[in-house]
């Protein structure tokens, strides 16, 4: 049984360092083979999870939430007040979003989300996090030099705009509500959703273009 012994696990990692193959594909294959042999996982279910998170569960959902907030003031109010209930209206409540918070960009405020301790991410509305979000370079600097980080993403934040960095240290997860771009008054929800980039919902993009960019 489990005894929650940190030293034992640290020792296991030292042994795994020696015994596991170096190649990542072989390591994961070895894990799947053992778990299937022992009757712990079904490979077809793994296929289904891969498929689900390749397209259906991903940033298109987040973009839909944002576009709906832009077009329906009542929905936006519910989203800011109780985000899990609001996204559940769309069927998007799921993995890691039961304690979702929505933080809104304004002319005076820009929000940026990070997880410095691991890589917490609102999976059921944004899908799999981009590689940079999980990398040491972003995790280390987002809290210390957010303006420099944003500059690397091509986003310049004027001095008079306040930058708020949200470090996901608990089970709360954050979705940035970007500003609706000017010149989109005649667009419907579908068209608006096409303007919302994944990065804008994390905070590494700010001024969305009226030229459809899809989900980057």
């Amino acid at each position, binding site marked *: 049984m*489990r*005894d*929650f012994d*940190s030293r034992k*696990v640290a020792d296991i990692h*030292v*042994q795994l360092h020696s*015994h596991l193959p170096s190649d990542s*594909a072989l*390591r*994961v294959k070895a*894990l799947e083979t*053992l*778990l299937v042999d*022992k*009757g*712990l*996982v*079904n490979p*077809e*279910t*793994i296929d*289904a999870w891969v*498929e*689900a*998170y*390749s*397209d*259906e569960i991903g940033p298109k959902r987040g973009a839909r939430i944002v576009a709906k907030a832009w077009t329906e003031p009542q929905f936006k109010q519910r989203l800011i007040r109780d985000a899990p209930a609001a996204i559940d209206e769309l069927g998007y409540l*799921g*993995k890691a*979003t*039961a*304690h979702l918070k929505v933080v809104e960009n304004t002319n005076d405020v820009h929000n940026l989300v*990070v997880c*410095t*301790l*691991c890589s917490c991410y609102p999976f*059921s509305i944004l899908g*799999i996090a*981009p*590689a940079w979000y999980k990398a*040491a*370079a972003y*995790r*280390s*600097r987002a*809290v210390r030099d957010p303006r420099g980080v944003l500059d*690397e*993403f*091509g986003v310049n934040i004027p001095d008079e*705009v*306040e*930058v*708020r*960095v949200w*470090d996901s240290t*608990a*089970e*709360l997860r954050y979705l940035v509500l970007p500003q609706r771009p000017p010149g989109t008054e005649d667009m419907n929800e579908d068209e608006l959703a096409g303007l919302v980039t994944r990065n804008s919902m994390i905070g590494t993009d700010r001024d969305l273009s009226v030229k459809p960019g899809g989900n980057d």
Partner: protein
Amino acid sequence: MDGIHDLGGKEGYGPIDVDDDGRSFHHDWEGREWGIAQCARTPGITIDWWRHCRELIMPEDYLARPYFDSWAQTDFSTYIEAGWITMEEVIEGSARPGNPDHGDSPAPMSLQQVVQEDRSHAFRFDASIEAEPAFNIGQCVRTSGYGNVGHTRLPQYARGRHGVVHAWHGAHVFPDLSAQGVEVHQHLYSVSFTAAELWPEARNGKDRVYLDLWESYLSDGQS
């Protein structure tokens, strides 16, 4: 623990590779590991114990190996620690007869079933407790100067610092104990810190960093 995972504010990791093509998985094995992690369960496991097992990966592996590779290693470690897989089986690459066997494979799930299953993964971590919250919104608080030798969610860069309570979220499972298999709820707050309180070089007086912190990480900032 003061481990390699606690990256906030650390320097020397270079520029960010901002290019991303939007694909969820760039190698088959990344998707396989994602799927395995969604199915994998061992008795008594908590999200905090799993995170702690990932933090315990040797620093050279933690920093150098790809992200989902570190998930696979974490899964290996939790299965071995729970006694469901042995190191001998890892070395041999196959299950040994007589070692723990959990019978027939679980029934396969379809795409629709998995999408539905994802909804059931909306796990909540809050609960009502009798104790009143010790701090009020707007109150100045000071974070503990020390971490926990085991798992903790108070990063090094925010220890011994003054902040302001921005929001209260009710009581949530306390990770330091959850990583030891003990479920206790504590009041959770979002606390905001000025950049200048955290970093000597901070120059914009408006910028703030918000962290979600449990009550026992905090004390009254005036006393």
